[in-house]
């Protein structure tokens, strides 16, 4: 028989695993990492923006020299590429009217493109290029309103917003990629992914407000009053209210702040600078203009 004693004493629990409640750790981690990521993003955003502004404008133009702007932004159900030079000339003329009043830096030139899509929107992008959609122009009642939009887009270009947005978007995307590549953590992906999905050319609220202010200043100088901008935001407010489910309108919705808020800000600006928000409006002489479903407003 064995002369060695054998025993099987019970061993205390909790040595090889933690007896802490899992939700507690979950909450701690989520909060901690959330705050960490928010801080990192804040710092990165700031530096990315500051650095991006230093990229010379000529580089922007060179970036897009081999690309057709229209191809980037077109919808699928688009009319075939036609000759839109009359429309583009008209739009360029309006831009040229506003540019002297906007104080563009030296060497910066803007070029307007036209797309016959029904989207109600207009874009400013790299290299001083702008794209106006037929849907937007059809919704305009007067030259002043169109000029308000034009001034807004030119202001984006003047303030270098496209390159700054691109810089920020790329930085966040790089951060997300490096984290997901190394640790492969789906949780990390989730937290970063939604912010990395910032469309690279989406502008922040501050940028939009700054563009609105510059545009109003130019309008006041060129037309003597900012009625165009005033009516524009009212108009957009109505469109947003009635038509917000239409895809053509949703596009505008997603990329700009609420028109109601923009209108309020405009009133403040007008008060502050002594601009008049009403005045005689210029007629819109857009070639083959088809005013749309929205009834024209009464002007005084």
């Amino acid at each position: 028989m064995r002369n060695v004693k054998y025993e099987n004493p019970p061993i205390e629990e909790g040595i090889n695993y933690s007896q802490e409640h899992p939700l507690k750790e979950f909450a701690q981690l989520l909060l901690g990492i959330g705050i960490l990521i928010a801080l990192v993003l804040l710092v990165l955003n700031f530096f990315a923006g500051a650095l991006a502004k230093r990229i010379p404008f000529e580089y922007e133009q060179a970036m897009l020299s081999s690309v057709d702007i229209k191809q980037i932004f077109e919808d699928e159900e688009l009319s075939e590429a036609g000759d839109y030079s009359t429309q583009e000339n008209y739009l360029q003329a309006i831009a040229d009217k506003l540019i002297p009043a906007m104080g563009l830096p030296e060497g910066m030139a803007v070029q307007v493109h036209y797309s016959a899509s029904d989207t109600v929107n207009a874009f400013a992008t790299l290299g001083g290029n702008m794209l106006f959609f037929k849907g937007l122009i059809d919704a305009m009642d007067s030259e002043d309103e169109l000029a308000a939009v034009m001034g807004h887009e030119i202001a984006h270009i003047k303030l270098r917003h496209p390159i700054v947005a691109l810089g920020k978007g790329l930085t966040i995307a790089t951060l997300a990629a490096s984290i997901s590549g190394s640790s492969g953590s789906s949780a990390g992906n989730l937290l970063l992914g939604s912010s990395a999905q910032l469309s690279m050319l989406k502008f922040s609220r501050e940028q939009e407000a700054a563009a609105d202010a510059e545009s109003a200043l130019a309008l006041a100088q060129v037309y003597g009053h900012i009625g165009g901008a005033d009516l524009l935001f009212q108009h957009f407010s109505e469109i947003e209210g009635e038509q917000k489910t239409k895809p053509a309108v949703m596009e505008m919705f997603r990329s700009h702040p609420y028109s109601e808020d923009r209108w309020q800000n405009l009133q403040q600006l007008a008060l502050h600078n002594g601009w008049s928000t009403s005045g005689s409006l210029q007629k819109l002489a857009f070639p083959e203009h088809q005013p749309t479903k929205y009834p024209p407003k009464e002007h005084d």
Partner: protein
Amino acid sequence: MLISNMEVIPQKRIIKHLGLVQGSTVRAKHVGKDILAGFKNILGGELTAYTELMSEAREEATQRMIAQAESAGANAVLNVRFATSSVAQGAAELFVYGTAVVLDGASV
């Protein structure tokens, strides 16, 4: 606590066998070190961050096994074996197990 991977210790006699004891731990390094290790994959050489990770894990697993042995009333663990496995990218599980015994004349 005497730890050994021999079955018998010279000059010592086993007076009681107390069964299997195990210690395990799962650890990960934080993402900054992971990214740096990713770069090291290009250059080659020792991944010091991961070496640290494995050493810490081994140390902690051994401590846990000792804790289990103490809870059973042992003063030595014999025939110790290690097992390592990767449970996720960048995280390693370290497992140590051995037989807890009471040795005659052993110093604790």
